[in-house]
């Protein structure tokens, strides 16, 4: 039998559970979490009890869960999957609900490594409080358990995750892994969030376009918008498949470096098309905070800055491209 591109029964169940949690529990509180720069503690506990995160969950299932959460609230998704992309490197220390880790790809070399200690500042991490930081510096991943300072900053989006400047002052670090593997996990994680955010924005705008009428018919039935809605749907699906490919590769123990770089580059490109287009579909209403599309647009812009941003992913993919065999594998 040749290739399959479907979720297993179990994966579908996970997806359904995550979707129900997101729609029933997160949706009513999107704006309050945004204002509070955090997710209500009882929801953090509730989500942890569902068992959809944690160490035993592979990259593929994680991608499915993140998409569902981010389709409602990307910031809350970052907060709820608190150990997030650091999980493959942390082992069982992440069992507590509310545990937060950030993984920083130090592409601009803000940090200096001297005698096993890191020094320097990173302008933004999506958290107000952390339990551990993983810094990808050069070709190694370093685990930082102490010696940081977080100063709150005002982010463009993802408020529910928090936002701070991260300063390390001679923080003792341990090299835990090869940075390439850590980067592949990080990029896949961010890309999954982007897919969710884009899907949320697209679906909301699509429904709105069926209710809003102009020139005597639903605006979705004007071809200019119908085509845009079709293109945005394709964009979301294209990005999702790229993420699934990378995540499945990671779970099979492949390095998936190229796949993960492509997943982030694709998800960022497509989500950055979807976010502003969704606002455009709502017109003036899209610009107002009465609707969530403006939030998704900001969240997408913010998400696409994680993991060294789209540039780092594209540069990585470009470095690998001349060696890449594009044939059927």
């Amino acid at each position, binding site marked *: 039998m040749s290739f399959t*591109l479907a979720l297993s029964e179990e994966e579908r169940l996970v997806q359904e559970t995550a979707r129900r949690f997101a729609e029933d529990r997160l949706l009513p509180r999107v704006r309050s979490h945004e204002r509070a720069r955090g997710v209500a503690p009882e929801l953090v506990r509730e989500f942890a009890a569902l068992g959809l995160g944690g160490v035993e969950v592979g990259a*593929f299932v994680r991608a499915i869960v993140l998409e569902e959460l981010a389709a409602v609230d990307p910031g809350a998704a970052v907060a709820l999957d608190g150990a997030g992309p650091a999980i493959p490197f942390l082992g069982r220390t992440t069992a507590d609900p509310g545990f937060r880790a950030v993984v920083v790809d130090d592409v601009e070399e803000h940090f200096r490594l001297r005698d096993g200690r890191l020094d320097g500042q990173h302008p933004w991490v999506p958290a107000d409080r952390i339990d551990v930081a993983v810094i990808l510096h050069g070709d190694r991943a370093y685990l930082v358990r102490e010696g940081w300072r977080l100063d709150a900053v005002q982010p463009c989006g993802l408020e529910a995750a928090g936002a701070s400047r991260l300063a390390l002052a001679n923080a003792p670090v341990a090299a835990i892994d090869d940075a390439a593997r850590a980067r592949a996990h990080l990029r896949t994680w961010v890309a999954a969030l982007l897919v969710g955010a884009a899907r949320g924005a697209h679906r909301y705008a699509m429904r709105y376009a069926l209710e809003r009428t102009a020139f005597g018919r639903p605006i979705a039935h004007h*071809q200019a918008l119908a085509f845009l809605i079709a293109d945005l*749907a394709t964009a979301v699906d*294209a990005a999702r498949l790229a993420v699934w490919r990378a995540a499945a590769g990671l*779970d099979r123990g492949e390095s998936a470096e190229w796949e993960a770089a492509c997943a982030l580059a694709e998800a960022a490109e497509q989500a950055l098309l979807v976010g502003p287009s969704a606002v455009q579909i709502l017109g003036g209403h899209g610009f107002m905070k009465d609707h969530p599309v403006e939030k998704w647009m900001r969240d997408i812009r913010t998400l696409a800055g994680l993991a060294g941003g789209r540039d780092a992913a*594209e540069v990585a993919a*470009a470095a690998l491209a001349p060696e890449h065999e*594009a*044939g059927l594998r």
Partner: protein
Amino acid sequence: MIDLAIGAELEAELDGVRRLGREFLRPLGIEADRNAAPVPPDHPFFAMVWRMGLGQPLGVQERPGSRGGARRGVVLAEEMSYWDRGMSVAMPGLGLGGPPLFTMGTPEQKERFLAPFRDRERPHWAAFAMTEPGAGSDVAAIETTAVRDGDTWVLRGAKTFISNAMRADWIVVWATVDRAAGRAGHRAFIVERGTPGLEDMRHEHKMGLIAYESSSFTLRDCPVPAANLLGGERHYAERAGFKGAMKSFNATRPAIAAMAIGIARAAYDAARDFARSHYALDRPIPRYQRVREKLARMARKLEVGRLLCWRAAYLADVEQPNEVEASMAKAFAATSAQEATGLAVEVLGDAGVTADGYVEKLYRDVKAMDIVEGTGQIQRIVIARRLVGLPNA
């Protein structure tokens, strides 16, 4: 979890296509392009592949699910087009004439019209004729008429851009019995070679895909036996006329998308190999970073496009609705492939725009993939109909 392994059996088939491609498809495609003339039907290559039991339909099966069905179809379609898309259409066999015969034909019709294709001595072709000079995307607007006259139907009209029509044993010709009825008035006829009134058969001159012939012809009071009405009267009494045509498109759209990916992959390989052999990419020359970026974008887009094709094909094989997914695959793959071939031209620099560079041929070839079997715009209409109920005009 998804699994993208294609399996040993298909891998072996792919190897066969690779050998055929390297030795024949690509050289013949390039030769046809340089000569500005299709590969003639009596070329020994066609007789050879026909005797080997190759030839179309490689991408389209009698029944979805048979021999790996749609998944096998997209994988082989990509590989054939990787070597030369023009040659893959020129391959002898039923081509697009197959699906309507299989899905609409009566048992007697299948027996009769498949018979010549069992002769392995001499290659045979069939063709499918819907498009007219005045009706492309808007297939409901075809003007070729069919009028019943005793035991025959008399066809009047003109068809254009029909692949392999000139060398076909028979052509599935779409005509209307009632123009006011739109699609419900459509009927499909099998018009055999030599039928009086099947006239003015001529080559069209294309910008690319030269290896196969695209022909136009006139139906001048062309009498077709009533027995050649595909599916018989009963089929149309159930008002399935247009659906018959659309069904064949549904089956082939993912394969057409895969062909676009195949062409893009050929461009990627050519550009990558050129870059490797002509540029020292690790030197800090600004343009080289752009070369890398272009290669990366091409590789990424063709990978994602392939995943969209594969998803549509997978859904077809497990008999789930794939209309939206097939259209997404085709819309995405065709535009990405156009972009990729254009980027390949840029990677080669000045050499890119000369025939020696090969990629300029791919740039010309691939444009058709966003036009045939539903333009990119039609694919968006299909998607939007399903997503937001976009009404017909």
